């Protein structure tokens, strides 16, 4: 009898807990007030700039072909939680996002919420895009509409339990998703503020250049200080002014790596950074200089300790 009472109480507590979790972490779309900006059609030409600064092609372009505007998806992103398959975001009405309105893209990029009111996985770097200006999203949508329709839906992600349950992403958002807008800082120049917007809101540089905890959240105290490559092999370098970071790099050096991939040591960046460079090479030199200006201002932070390299 007593057992039954206890277990009933236990079930009740769990049920209340679950209900509270679902309530607190439910996907929430943008308010109509914020969406009013989207009533005017976006400017596709400006949108192309947002597309390049946001690096959408790095993930969404169909692999094994050169055209950055063929957004058929299919790239596989390995992670500790399983493999994500990047979706088709071409203008194809059924297989891509051809039927989307600007508000759908705004909800996806600023809130990580789908038109079906489900959470997106943060492998889609909306934790950075959430800081983007809503007008920029309208322009981006206008640009995406001009790109070719690519046939073929991509296959589902292959994630291990419990990470395959989308509702749980609400918990991740509750813990790590910071929607605070990036406001201009009047103590810095206009160039620096432009750079910060490009790096933080669009370029999502910190998404790769920061260490993460076991739940996949960025360790805030070591933002930009580098860490193990989330995709497995390799190490992502420290971008702060620490001596193991970019202390010896000039603003021109940083601009140059974003333009051509070449580093002051005469090396060329490889792997996923080479894809980033394909995007940043399309930006104006002023924009790259602004990004370099901001990166050069990052306070020195010691990154995680790099494991010794194997002898053979």
């Amino acid at each position, binding site marked *: 009898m007593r057992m039954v009472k206890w277990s009933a109480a236990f079930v009740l507590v769990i049920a209340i807990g679950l209900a509270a979790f679902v309530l607190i972490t439910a996907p929430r779309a943008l308010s109509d007030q914020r969406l009013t900006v989207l009533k005017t059609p976006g400017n596709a030409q400006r949108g192309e700039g947002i597309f390049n600064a946001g690096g959408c092609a790095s993930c969404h372009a169909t692999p094994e072909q050169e055209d950055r505007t063929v957004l058929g998806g299919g790239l596989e992103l390995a992670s500790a939680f399983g493999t994500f398959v990047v979706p088709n975001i071409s203008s194809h009405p059924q297989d891509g996002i051809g039927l989307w309105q600007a508000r759908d893209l705004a909800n996806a990029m600023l809130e990580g919420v789908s038109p079906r009111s489900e959470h997106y996985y943060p492998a889609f770097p909306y934790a950075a895009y959430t800081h983007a200006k809503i007008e920029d999203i309208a322009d981006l949508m206008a640009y995406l509409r001009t790109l070719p329709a690519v046939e073929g839906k991509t296959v589902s992600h292959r994630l291990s339990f419990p990470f395959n349950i989308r509702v749980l992403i609400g918990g991740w958002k509750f813990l790590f998703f910071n929607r605070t807008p990036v406001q201009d800082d009047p103590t810095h120049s206009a160039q620096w503020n432009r750079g910060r917007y490009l790096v933080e809101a669009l370029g999502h540089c910190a998404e790769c250049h920061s260490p993460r905890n076991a739940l996949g959240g960025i360790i805030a105290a070591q933002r930009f200080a580098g860490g193990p*490559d989330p995709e497995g*092999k*390799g*190490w992502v*370098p420290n971008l702060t002014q620490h001596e193991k970071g970019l202390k010896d790099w000039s603003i*021109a050096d940083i601009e*140059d790596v974003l333009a*051509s*991939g*070449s580093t*002051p*040591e*005469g*090396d*060329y*960046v*490889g*792997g*996923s950074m*080479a*894809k980033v*460079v394909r995007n940043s090479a399309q930006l104006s030199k002023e924009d790259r200089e602004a990004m370099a200006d901001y990166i050069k201002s990052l306070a020195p932070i010691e990154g995680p300790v790099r494991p010794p*390299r*194997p*002898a*053979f």
Partner: protein
Amino acid sequence: MIRPIFTLLFLLTGFSLAQAQTDAIAQRRAIMKGVGQANADVGKIAKGEAPFDLAKVKALLSASQEASAKMPGLFPDNSKTGDTAALPKVWQTKADFDARWKKLGEDAAALQIAITDQASFKAKMSDFGKNCGGCHEGYRQKN
């Protein structure tokens, strides 16, 4: 008596195999480091941080031609792991990888003739680096 000899032979072959593998990695990295140093000098010229110097440009082109000739042979199957930044794709699409080395050598040879002064350097050199970045994109990730 026969046993220690066998053991010794066994150890020796094992040792030399491991040696061959680390040698290939060390050799290819040394070659690439040399190209990198030559390229750093040329980068300074391109950025206007150093005066134009034809000898330094030629040194980069020669180092690239040498790399083009030697590198394809320095990726034996037993050198996939170790202190290397080469990605597994090197061995998966070896034909494409080798073709890129060939193109690097051909482009360098053409530029040896085409670049004679600062003006021709400015006009002709800029695309050369795409060979480097393009190959590193698929085949190299720092570790």
